[in-house]
């Protein structure tokens, strides 16, 4: 190992050194931005942040394009505790390069959008500073070379998300949501921390490069994989910790776009990509199961939401479930490809939704309708992004979903678990569900009659260019052409030049069936009439499977009760003991006081009293009468004489 703090690239060529330097600069840039932007004035903060991120985007594209075959790694000793050295390490490979570009790209567009969206916000510089912190933390996860560093930035992402979700701190709902997001993430992070400890316990290293030498180990213990996966469950809002994500919609809309597309929820998926060798078959089965449940759960929950952003939030949950399931199947390429396409179209959807909210001043979709004429640009962008999300051919989502579904069917054939065949079918159905709820949302917003009374339709108009341009760019990036020249398959495209190609089953029926499902879902979504919101199946969707209520009943209320009980026990027992000791002390003090008073003081006073008595006695002799003196003298003389003689 090297000297303290000396970062040494393992490929010591000049070019390699330059790339390492670039990676470190990219990581430091947002943190520098965090400090400078937070000190900048309101007007300067936004452009400064945008400029920094643009610089980062250029740098990361440069880095990603010029990546060598071997990953660039940087190592340095960080702390040595009782002979065990913990390193600080960074690692830049194809995966990290891809993530760098996604994070910077989405972050740049979101910040440009924020310039206009949050124009009237008084705490603008703080907002952009938090965004920089968020980006920096995410870059730290992406570039981390060992699990310890990753965990540090992981927590930083949690902090930044807390700050941003609760950005409107004067709204109680926002601060509640921020707290909820933070606490639920903590649950997952605790598991991840234990997982890191277990990793160190079994392998004596936390370095990702060393952990990736799969041939060193036979089969990883299941507990390691599951504990690390818990971190992903929290960050990527998997079942059962998914309820923080819809609440996180309380944050500003551009933050939602960033959080859902690039910076936060992607972290969990990225973690799974990094720890692939540590996942045992049992752990993988659990991950696939959780991912599938999440996909379906999120999809169903999105179905009857009335808040425009909540539909998108649950669609994110659903898509993340899809990615996690793919990760569990070992289909890293498919999952990351979906992460890439999802980042663009989901950011596009959120920013479009932001434009809609900006125009009509409500988030309730039931009050919207008929906006396609008033907001033509948003309408087109929204349609493109929604089509990509639903998996319509010619759009990017179709390609990545096919990669995942194909991989899922291939996995089901080889998995050897009897229920495994159900997983890809469920995933396929969920993608039909995606089309259904997106079509419903699309219809509610853009078709039909405008119903919001507070804002007349004549007052509804497109936002300015700063908000339109990012939306349009993101919509353009949701088209299949950028990812693959062949719009029906991503095989042989540049994406799988970077990412590992998923093992796909030769299923000629799969694309037609999925297209059919999408069209069916879309048709139902457009044609379906709104059901009565009091029906159980609607409530089940709107309250996302009563998960929050279940938590309230089974976890929060008992926890509060237990806390009250403990509090009472504390008051009775501990405080009682303390108070008893106090009372005992007072009693003892009284006792001592009495002893003092009657014993010690008594002795002193008694001595004084005795002296007084003696004095009075002797004084009585000195009575001033000459004759009594003489009497005494004579008696004394007689005694002396009697004594002598």
């Amino acid at each position: 190992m090297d000297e303290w703090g000396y970062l040494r690239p393992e490929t010591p060529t000049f070019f390699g050194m330059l790339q390492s330097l670039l990676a470190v600069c990219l990581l430091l840039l947002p943190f520098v931005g965090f400090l400078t932007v937070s000190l900048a004035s309101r007007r300067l903060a936004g452009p400064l942040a945008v400029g920094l991120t643009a610089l980062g985007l250029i740098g990361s594209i440069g880095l990603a394009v010029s990546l060598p075959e071997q990953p660039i790694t940087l190592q340095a000793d960080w702390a040595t505790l009782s002979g065990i050295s913990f390193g600080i390490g960074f690692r830049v490979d194809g995966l990290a390069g891809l993530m760098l570009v996604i994070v910077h790209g989405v972050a740049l567009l979101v910040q440009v959008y924020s310039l206009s969206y949050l124009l009237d916000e008084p705490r603008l510089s703080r907002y952009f500073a938090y965004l920089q912190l968020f980006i920096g933390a995410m870059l730290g996860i992406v570039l981390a070379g060992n699990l310890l560093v990753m965990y540090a930035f992981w927590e930083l992402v949690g902090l930044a998300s807390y700050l941003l979700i609760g950005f409107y701190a004067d709204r109680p709902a926002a601060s509640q949501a921020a707290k909820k997001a933070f606490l639920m993430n903590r649950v997952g992070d605790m598991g991840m921390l234990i997982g890191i400890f277990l990793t160190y316990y079994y392998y004596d290293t936390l370095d990702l490069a060393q952990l990736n030498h799969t041939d060193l180990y036979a089969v990883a213990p299941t507990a390691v994989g599951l504990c690390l996966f818990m971190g992903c469950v929290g960050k990527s809002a998997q079942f059962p910790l998914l309820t923080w994500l819809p609440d996180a919609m309380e944050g500003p809309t551009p933050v939602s776009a960033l959080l859902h597309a690039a910076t936060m929820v992607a972290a969990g998926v990225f973690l799974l990509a990094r720890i692939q060798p540590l996942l045992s078959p049992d752990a993988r089965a659990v991950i696939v199961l959780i991912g599938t449940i999440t996909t379906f759960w999120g999809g169903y929950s999105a179905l009857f939401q009335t808040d425009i952003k909540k539909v998108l939030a649950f669609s994110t949950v659903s898509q993340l479930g899809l990615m996690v399931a793919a990760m569990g199947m070992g289909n890293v390429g498919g999952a990351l490809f979906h992460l890439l396409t999802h980042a663009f179209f989901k950011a596009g959807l959120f920013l479009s939704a932001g434009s809609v909210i900006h125009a009509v001043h409500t988030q309730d979709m039931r009050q919207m309708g008929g906006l396609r004429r008033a907001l033509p640009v948003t309408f087109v962008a929204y349609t493109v992004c929604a089509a990509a999300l639903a998996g319509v051919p010619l759009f990017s989502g179709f390609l990545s979903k096919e990669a995942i579904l194909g991989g899922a069917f291939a996995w089901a054939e080889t998995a050897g678990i009897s229920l495994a065949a159900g997983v890809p079918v469920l995933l396929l159905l969920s993608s039909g569900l995606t089309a259904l709820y997106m079509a419903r949302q699309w219809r509610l917003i853009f078709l039909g009659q405008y119903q919001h009374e507070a804002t007349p339709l004549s007052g509804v108009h497109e936002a300015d260019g700063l908000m339109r341009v990012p939306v349009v760019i993101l919509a353009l990036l949701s088209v299949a052409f950028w990812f693959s020249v062949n719009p029906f398959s991503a095989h042989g495209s540049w994406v799988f030049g970077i990412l590992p190609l998923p093992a796909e089953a030769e299923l000629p029926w799969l694309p037609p069936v999925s297209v059919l499902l999408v069209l069916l879902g879309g048709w139902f979504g457009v044609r379906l009439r709104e059901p009565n919101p009091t029906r159980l199946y609607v409530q089940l969707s709107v309250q996302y499977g009563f998960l929050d209520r279940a938590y309230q009943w089974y976890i929060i209320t008992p926890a509060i009760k237990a806390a009250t009980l403990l509090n009472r026990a504390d008051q009775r027992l501990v405080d009682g003991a303390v108070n008893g000791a106090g009372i005992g002390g007072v009693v003892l003090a009284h006792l001592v006081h009495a002893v003092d008073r009657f014993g010690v003081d008594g002795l002193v006073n008694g001595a004084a009293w005795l002296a007084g008595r003696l004095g009075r006695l002797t004084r009585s002799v000195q009575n001033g009468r000459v004759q009594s003196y003489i009497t005494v003298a004579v008696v004394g003389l007689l005694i002396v004489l009697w004594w002598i003689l």
Partner: protein
Amino acid sequence: MQSVDSHLFLIVGAALFSIGLAVVLLKRHAIVVLMGIELMLNAVNINLVAFSQYDPDRIQGQMLALFVMVVAAAESAVALAIVLQVYRHFRTAQLDELNELRQ
């Protein structure tokens, strides 16, 4: 000269001394007390003279008795002067009323 038993002298002397002492202790008037003192001194003189017969020169005891008389006279003169002053000052010569020493 017929000698008298010396113990008779001693008895008279002792009786005289005792009477003088009693007067000194019991009487309240200063002048009477002084008279008691004179009695005691004279009792001593009797003893001195009585014991003087055993002296080979028979002179020492008598000489001392004479000396005591002189001293007693002087003492009486001084004491009477004091008593006079006391009386002038306190308007009384009763000893039990003179408790100025006590203060």
